[in-house]
């Protein structure tokens, strides 16, 4: 493990040193390209005055809420669609269509409907999440081998029993994959919404990035970008990593 860390760390250090040196050599004091030290300086300041932590918390709160609502709705709708041909025919095409619509397109309507408040952000985030989760759930439940379902039904499994013992366990890898995708979409939608919409309540990471642009503080822009990447990585490692490892283990796929 430790030997595998050497290569990426060395590469990162080299990259940062090269970046710092080339900016200092060719573009000293440029308002466009901040040096890594300037970005670190911004980090330090923003950490000390609490603004970075506050913005991250605001954004994470919006993200979790949006994701929970979006994924919950997606699970429900996806399950319905998978088991009922009528429902699938009725809303399948709608979901497919809306999934291709970048959720930032909802911003103008969201502002009119919910005002420039949390409601608008929540709506945009949910719209970015729900359709992809729904389609993933529908697909993975539909692709459970029919033989399993028939065998279970022969043995008298019905309703919730069939769902909890056969359909959900069999389609879990696909559902988790869909959730992961939904999480990624929620994150993107939220960032787009925060950057484009002036929200009267709360100051999130997207607003912070936008302010960096307005004030020509590129170190702030890059710094916030780094935080956004970091949050994404952490969510992936802490939230989905264990679930995926457990899934692989219970399916005899080893530690991967």
């Amino acid at each position, binding site marked *: 493990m430790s030997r595998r860390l050497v290569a990426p760390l060395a590469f990162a250090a080299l990259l940062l040193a090269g970046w710092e040196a080339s900016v200092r050599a060719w573009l000293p004091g440029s*308002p466009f390209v901040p040096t890594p030290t300037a970005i670190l300086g911004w980090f330090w300041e923003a950490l000390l005055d609490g603004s970075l932590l506050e*913005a991250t918390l605001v954004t994470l709160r919006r993200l979790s809420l949006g994701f929970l609502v979006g994924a919950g709705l997606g699970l429900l709708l996806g399950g319905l669609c998978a088991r009922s041909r009528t429902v699938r025919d009725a809303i399948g095409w709608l979901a497919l269509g809306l999934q291709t619509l970048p959720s930032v397109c909802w911003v103008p309507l969201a502002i009119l409907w919910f005002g420039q408040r949390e409601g608008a952000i929540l709506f945009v985030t949910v719209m970015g999440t729900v359709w992809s989760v729904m389609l993933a759930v529908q697909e993975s439940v539909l692709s459970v081998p029919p033989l399993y379902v028939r065998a279970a039904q022969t043995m008298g499994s019905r309703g919730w029993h069939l769902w909890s013992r056969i359909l959900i366990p069999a389609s879990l890898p696909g559902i988790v994959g869909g959730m992961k995708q939904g999480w990624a979409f929620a994150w993107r939608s939220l960032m787009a919404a925060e950057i484009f919409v*002036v929200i009267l309540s709360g100051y999130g990471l997207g*607003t912070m990035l936008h*302010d960096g642009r*307005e*004030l*020509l*503080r590129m170190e702030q822009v890059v710094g916030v970008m780094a935080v956004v990447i970091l949050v994404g990585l952490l969510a992936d490692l802490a939230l989905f990593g264990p679930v995926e490892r457990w899934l692989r283990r219970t399916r005899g796929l080893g530690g991967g």
Partner: protein
Amino acid sequence: MRHLLLALLAALPAFASEPVTLRVGFFPNLTHAPALAARQLEREGKDWLAGHVPAGTKVEWFAYNAGPSAVEALFAGSIDASFIGPSPVLSAHVRTQGKGIRLLLPIAYGGNALVARPGFAPKGPADFKGRRVGTPQLGNTQDVDARAWLASGGLKVSLRGGDVHVLPMANPELVQLFAKGELDAVWTVEPWVSRLTSEFGGTVVHRKDDALITVLAASSKSLELSVRKEAVVGLARALLALRDRLEADPAEKLRLVRAGLAAELKSAPVAESLLRPALASILPAKPTSDAAARRARLAAQLDQSLRDARAAGILRSVHPVEPLLEDLVDDPAR
């Protein structure tokens, strides 16, 4: 081979004297009235540049909502010069350590105000505790003025909150939220100030009539090549001549600005009764033969704005303002 080289050399001056196309930024509001008038003259097929710029020089115009986006365009090389407020110029100046931008002309004073919504009658900055104040863009001149003024009442103002929330957003959005009562007050420029007072029942709480509100600034890059510099300085002189002409003929000024604004905003012309007082509240810079005093006065004003921006947290450091005025174009009394 040698002939070819000679031919190329001979062609060089021809390249160099190729007509310059100047790209100029402005905002479709009354504090940029000379730009509106100039654009309107162009629409009517009149050449307001003739005699001031090298023959063949063309001007292309680009509209922005507020200063920071214009500065971005100046630095990215998308435009050569721009009508702009002093605050974004100062922050660009500081961010490039005095190298990136030059102020060519002060254009106008006044024309901005803080307007409170109906039902909110503050007596001073201290009454804004817990309130929401809208400004046209983070770091623009009104945004800095608003933060400085609110702070002068003992309120803590920070970029993300504090005792009073200063919320920057585009002018049409400001009007919308003001009308809905979501913003308690708005600090912006004409014609938006007049719209807020006449259409939405707002009252003017505070005015800054002596404040420098619009300047003409150019990127240092556009002043490097002598041909381009000649055109940029020519543009400044043409603007001074245009100002003299319009000040001598207020009816023509009103007509041009009114038609120009309507064309810019793609809307019906604003009523003359509304436009006249709004336009009158914006005072064009006056010509003076005392160049040194003019420069000193400008430097003092800019220095004050610089300190306000520093205090408001818009700027993290300061830089002497003198280099900014290196290419100031003289405006002698005629």
